Structures are given as structure tokens and as C-alpha cells.
């Protein structure tokens, strides 16, 4: 076992997800199977290999500082689950 129930719970908090108690065992098993599989990567020496985050050799892609029209507020709020006076409304925030 590479990860524990506690690890999975921590990742769930980071993911804003809840894992039901009765699903935890299966989750753990799958998670560990997966991690075991990706361990094949550890067999390869990558000490002197540079990571590739982008495949394209692109750089310095910019836009000019020119104003473009914004959305109408109606349109901006059209998909909001809840709105109030032109604002998006959300439940109580506890810091």
C-alpha cells in the first residue's frame, strides 16, 4: 500500500470532493493499483532530462493593451446558480 486512507482523505479535501465511507476501500485499492502501475517511470533514469511542459517551441505570445468589449451583465450572469443585484451570490464564507 503506497497511500493510506488518510492520504486519500487529504487529497479529497484538496479536490473539494467527499469519498463515501463505504467506497473508501475500493478507492484505496484503485488508487494503489494505479500508483503501482505508474511506478514503471521510476525505472528510467531521468536525472539529466529536462521536463517538457510545452511541446511547441513557442515564446513571447502577447496581445496589445487594447480594450475589447466586455459581456453584457445579463449575459455574464445568465448561467449563475444564484444572483442578486447584478452580483453572483454565494453561501456563507468561512475563512
Amino acid at each position, binding site marked *: 500500500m503506497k497511500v493510506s486512507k488518510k492520504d486519500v482523505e487529504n487529497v479529497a479535501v484538496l479536490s473539494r470532493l467527499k469519498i463515501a465511507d463505504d467506497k473508501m476501500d475500493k478507492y484505496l485499492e484503485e488508487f494503489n493499483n494505479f500508483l503501482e502501475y505508474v511506478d514503471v517511470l521510476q525505472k528510467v533514469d531521468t536525472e539529466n532530462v529536462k521536463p517538457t511542459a510545452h511541446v511547441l517551441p513557442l515564446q513571447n*505570445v502577447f496581445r496589445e493593451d*487594447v*480594450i475589447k468589449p466586455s*459581456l453584457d451583465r445579463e449575459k455574464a450572469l445568465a448561467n449563475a446558480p444564484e444572483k442578486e443585484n447584478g*452580483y*453572483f451570490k454565494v453561501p456563507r464564507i468561512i475563512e
Partner: protein
Amino acid sequence: MEYEAVIGLEIHSELKTKTKIFCGCKTTFGAPQNTHVCPVCLGLPGVLPVINKKVVEFAIKAGIALNCTINKFSKFDRKNYYYPDLPKNFQTSQFDLPIAEHGYVDIEVDGKPKRIRITRVHMEEDAGKLVHSGNTIKDSSSSNVDYNRTGVPLIEIVSEPDMRTPEEARAYMEKVKAILEYIDVSNCKMEEGNLRADVNVSLRAKGTEKLGTKAEMKNLNSFKMVENALTYEIDRQEEVLEDGGHIVQETRTWDDGKGITISMRTKEQAQDYRYMPEPDLVPIVTTDEQIEAIKKTLPELPDARKNRLIKECGLSSYDAGMITNSRAMAEYFDEVVNKGADPKLAANWIMGDLSKQLNAEDKTIEDSPVAAADLAKMIKLIENGTISSKIAKKVFGEMWKTSTDPEIIVKEKGLVQITDTGAIEKIVNEVISSNPKPVADYKNGNAKSIGFLVGQVMKASKGKANPGMVNKLLKEKLTQ
């Protein structure tokens, strides 16, 4: 035990671009809620960011002005955390390759110079604004979100923990503000949140090296808040330590009304931002030539200007520092001097009566009712003897109230100094004849009594007689 505070600042400054960092929405302050938004800054599914060229230019400018090394290869990263003012629930920021690193600014507190090192300057997007239904975030049953500020470009300037007192922290922030104003990359309007600081502070026994546990206070948007919050927090930590307690690593809120810091709920889990390279943006590569070209566009910076004022205008280090701390004030000073006023007198008036009035009415020098040209004129009236320094104070008061040309004030109110020898002689003669005792005293060797006689002459002239001439004439008459 004697403690020493260790203070570091993260200063966030909004850049004064026309549009947001990754989209074409306007950045203007004070628009109705959710009207400066588009699919990109709302973080709708499918949208992609494109970097505003001006943001990079401004950030490089700031980096150079803060004596940093500009990284030739820089990139954006995603900083992951959930908050409703952050539509994507990650902030596009910079992690391991910020645009600029390893800089410093020099400050002066109580005449002592000190260098504060700057760790890094990076670019990122601002978050939106939350409006709470209750008085504070915690006692509100719901909150409303306005995304107008979401995506406004920011630079974050991170200092090393080089400050030891609240005064140093304030001086550092003032200096950074001055520099950003000079290079014209930020409006620096603190009341609009253009410039704000996250401050962290820890204590350690004086003379020791090891850092203590720090507390952080976020989003302080005035110099006074920075100074007051630090003063309070240092006292608080000292008390805790003196009582044998431990400092908890936490974020605390500064309650400006009550003048105290309050603990926010400590998170059970340490914040894990899970930074990763932003796959939707490509790296920023800067050449030496580009850096040189930007360097050439920089104006004279506060320190250089200060040195120039000391050298060329003969100002004291303190005066020169005060004047150059604000670009607007330095420009005002330059204009007064360029219009022909004596620099030292100009400095005295700007830092004296003018600053006093500005502070009293909570105005900035940009809103001064006394134009630089008029102040220069007034100083010249003093220099050429038209008015005395004392009268000048009256004239200045009028100028402040009515924004009128000082020459007109002097003429209309009849404040011109009497320099006509005949007129002064007449008053002197009258004073001598009506004050036999002081005259006798003087003649008997009591030199001090001439002061009384001068005062009488000035009084009789309603302050308009030229004091130098009065003195001279009196002495002549009494020694005859």
C-alpha cells in the same frame, strides 16, 4: 528578555494598464458590478488567456527600478486554491521563474540608511471583490461576488525579512510606492487597493540568528495600517513569549477600527498550492537589448533625485528625502525652483506650511490649491524684500484659500513691505521720542533693548516695515 522583530513584506501593486492581464476588459476602478467581465476573466469553460504585452513591460520596468536581475526566461504557473473571488480556483501567477529577482531598495529611518533586499518580483492576476451581507465576512449569511477586478494585472514584490521595526517597514513601503510612481507603472492609489501589503513578523531574542514563528497580516492598504498593525503585533507576540507561550503560525486580520489583530481560523491543513506550469501560456524570453531599451525609458528615480537635490540645491538629506519620496512632490519642488525660487526656501515652504495644510485637509499635492508657479512667485517676493517672511505666512494663507496670484494678494491687501527710508525714518523718530527709557538703556550699554524698539516700529508699521532697515536706522539714530 529583549526581543528583536523580523519583518518581511509582500507588496501587491496593480499595474496601470488599460486592459486586464489576460483579456481585453477594462481595468478602470469603480464600474458597476460585473460589467468589466468577459468569458476569459469569468473563467468560463473553454477560455484561454493571452498575456497583455504592457504588463510584461511594466513588470520588467519595476524589476529594473527595484535593482533586480531580470530573468531572461520566465513563465507563468497555476497557483491552486479555492476561493469564490477566484473564478478558475487557481490564480495564474509565477512560481519558480519570476520575471525579476535579487533586488533591493535603500531606506532611511532616523537618519540611518539601510538596505532592504528584494527576493523577487512576479506578475499575477488580481482576484474579484466580495461584498458581504453582514458587517464582517464571518457574520454574513451570504456574500456577493463582483468579478470586475478579476484579472487586473498585479506585480507582487517580495522582500527578504530585513526589517526590524514598524518604522522601517513603513519606510520600505513608502520607498517602493515612490519608485512605482516614478516609473509610472501603477496609480498607487492605496484607497482603491492599487497598493497593499501582506506583512509577516516574528520575534527572536536580540542577538540570536534563528527565526521565530511568524504571523501574517494580509491586505493592509495604508502606511499607517502597516505601522500600527506591526506595532500591535510585535507587542502581542512579546507578551505571549514573556508569558512563556508559543506563537502559532497563522494569518491574522488587522481590525483597523479596534486597532488590534485577530486570529483567523487556523487551517487544519497547511495550504498546499500545488503549483504547476500554466499550459495555456508560453514562456517569456527577454533579451539584453530589450532590457537595455526599457532601462533607457526609466526616469530619474527617487534616490538619484534625492542626491541631486542635496548636491545641486544644498538641501539636507532629510529634506531631500522627504521631497523625493513622492514623485508629485518632487515635481512640484522642481517646478517651484525652475520658476526661480530659492531651493532652500522652496523646501522649507513645501515641507512646512504647504504640507501642514495638505495634511490638515487630507489632500495630496496634486490637489493643492497653491500652484507651484504661485508659490515660486511668493518666495521671490520674500527674496526681493517685497514682503517679510511673517507677512508671507498671511499671503500663503490667502493663496491656500483663494488660489490667487500672491502679487495680487500683496497689492490688494496692501501688504507690500515698506522699504522707503523716509517713511521708516519717520516711524523710527516717533518711536524714539515716545520711548525715552529703552532709548536711554540702549545708550547706557544695554544692547538688548533695541529689540523692543524694533518691535515697536514693526507694530506701528503694521508689520510692513522692512525689519533689516528698521534695525539699521534705529542703530544709526541711537548712536548719533
